[in-house]
């Protein structure tokens, strides 16, 4: 009998059979893990409330033949309580989970930085002190950096010519100088690029001064970058509620 223990954040739950669920977690040491939680849909289940999305938990797994089985769970942080009470936070947090799920493609491959990023983003969303939309964009930019897809914001993405440059090309991977600029590039204002840089390195004082228009444009660019690199649409991103609290 092989047991192992890890801490993780619940990314998604899927129904299995009559009362079971498949729980996808991003864990500290074992990367993404998909495991069966038995009987959790029954109202008398002792595990049920602990393995809901957004929960940060300490879990014991039993190694199964195809999927591992969750045997014990203890809550570390119940982020869900702070998140589901506000629809904007909920939709932003769902986009965080879906991105983390897509970025950790291989099960069992350690993704410690992404795990820490997810925990940080959910904590910030549950606290509710910052604009959920900014928290989401900051998470997405840092997740892009984790995957090696960090956009060039202060120099040309193609020739490295120091900027700032006006043109921004998703395909080229960030801002581009007039010589390298491919056709169909966007031309965001300087404020948008400053906001994106501030979100990527966590300079919140700068990020929170940004205007609504800059926030909207930055969100659009970040979403486009992410979906270009992931080569697929995220289902939760179009449903994210972007309004200023």
């Amino acid at each position, binding site marked *: 009998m092989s047991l192992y223990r890890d801490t993780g954040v619940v990314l998604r739950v899927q129904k299995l*059979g009559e009362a079971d669920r498949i729980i996808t977690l991003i864990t500290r040491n074992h990367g993404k893990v998909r495991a069966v939680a038995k009987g959790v849909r029954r109202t008398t289940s002792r595990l049920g409330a602990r393995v*809901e*999305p957004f929960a940060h938990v300490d879990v014991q797994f039993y190694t199964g033949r195809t999927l591992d089985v969750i045997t014990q769970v203890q809550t570390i942080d119940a982020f869900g309580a702070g998140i589901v009470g506000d629809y904007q936070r909920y939709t932003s947090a769902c986009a965080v989970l879906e991105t983390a799920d897509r970025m950790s493609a291989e099960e069992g491959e350690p993704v410690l930085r992404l795990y820490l990023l997810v925990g940080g983003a959910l904590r910030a969303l549950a606290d509710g002190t910052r604009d959920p939309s900014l928290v989401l964009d900051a998470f997405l930019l840092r997740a892009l950096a984790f995957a090696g897809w960090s956009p060039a914001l202060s120099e040309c993405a193609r020739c490295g010519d120091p900027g700032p440059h006006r043109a921004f090309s998703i395909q080229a991977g960030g801002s581009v100088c007039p010589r390298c600029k491919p056709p169909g590039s966007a031309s965001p204002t300087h404020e948008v690029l400053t906001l994106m840089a501030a979100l990527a390195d966590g300079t919140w004082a700068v990020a929170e001064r940004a205007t609504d228009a800059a926030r909207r444009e930055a969100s659009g660019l970040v979403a486009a970058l992410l979906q270009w690199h992931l080569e697929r649409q995220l289902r939760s991103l179009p449903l994210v509620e972007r309004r200023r609290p």
Partner: protein
Amino acid sequence: MYEGPVQDLIDELGRLPGVGPKSAQRIAFHLLGAEPADVTRLQEALQKVKEGVVFCDVCGNVSEESTCRICRDARRDPSAVCVVEEPKDVLAIERTREFKGRYHVLGGALDPLSGIGPEQLRIRQLLSRIGSQEITEVILAMDPNTEGEATATYLVRMLRDFPGLTVTRLASGLPMGGDLEFADELTLGRALSGRRTV
């Protein structure tokens, strides 16, 4: 592999939820040996469920006619509406025999991870129903999980502006017949915060 029709039947039965290959084989051979009248009855029931069942125009529950039995029943209290996720939940609440009002079936819960937003649910129909009928209380009876809670939060925000409307949420706490020491901290916390004077 069996020949022709028997294997086809096993394959079709095997696609049903909760039916594995062995169960499918057992059901197929049971049907093969059953009385022709029994098989015909099953056949008719299957056909009727696809052709005869529609969704109620008012509440969205499964129904034989354009309005369901509960919405047609004049004895039911028209001022209270219980909002649930699925038609299965209507039956669960009906079994309690505690609720005398009417229902509204949303057809699911808000779940951005599966691409389900407010537009995919029957939320607009609920709002127009409340705007046009004499409804004074809306009971939110979504599942006590993350998606259900988020749906309730969203509905509370939408229903806040209706004058004179009481919005309530099903109580959540300890299941009957259980031991307190085995309750998980979230449920026990909810039970404590929702305690009542006796």
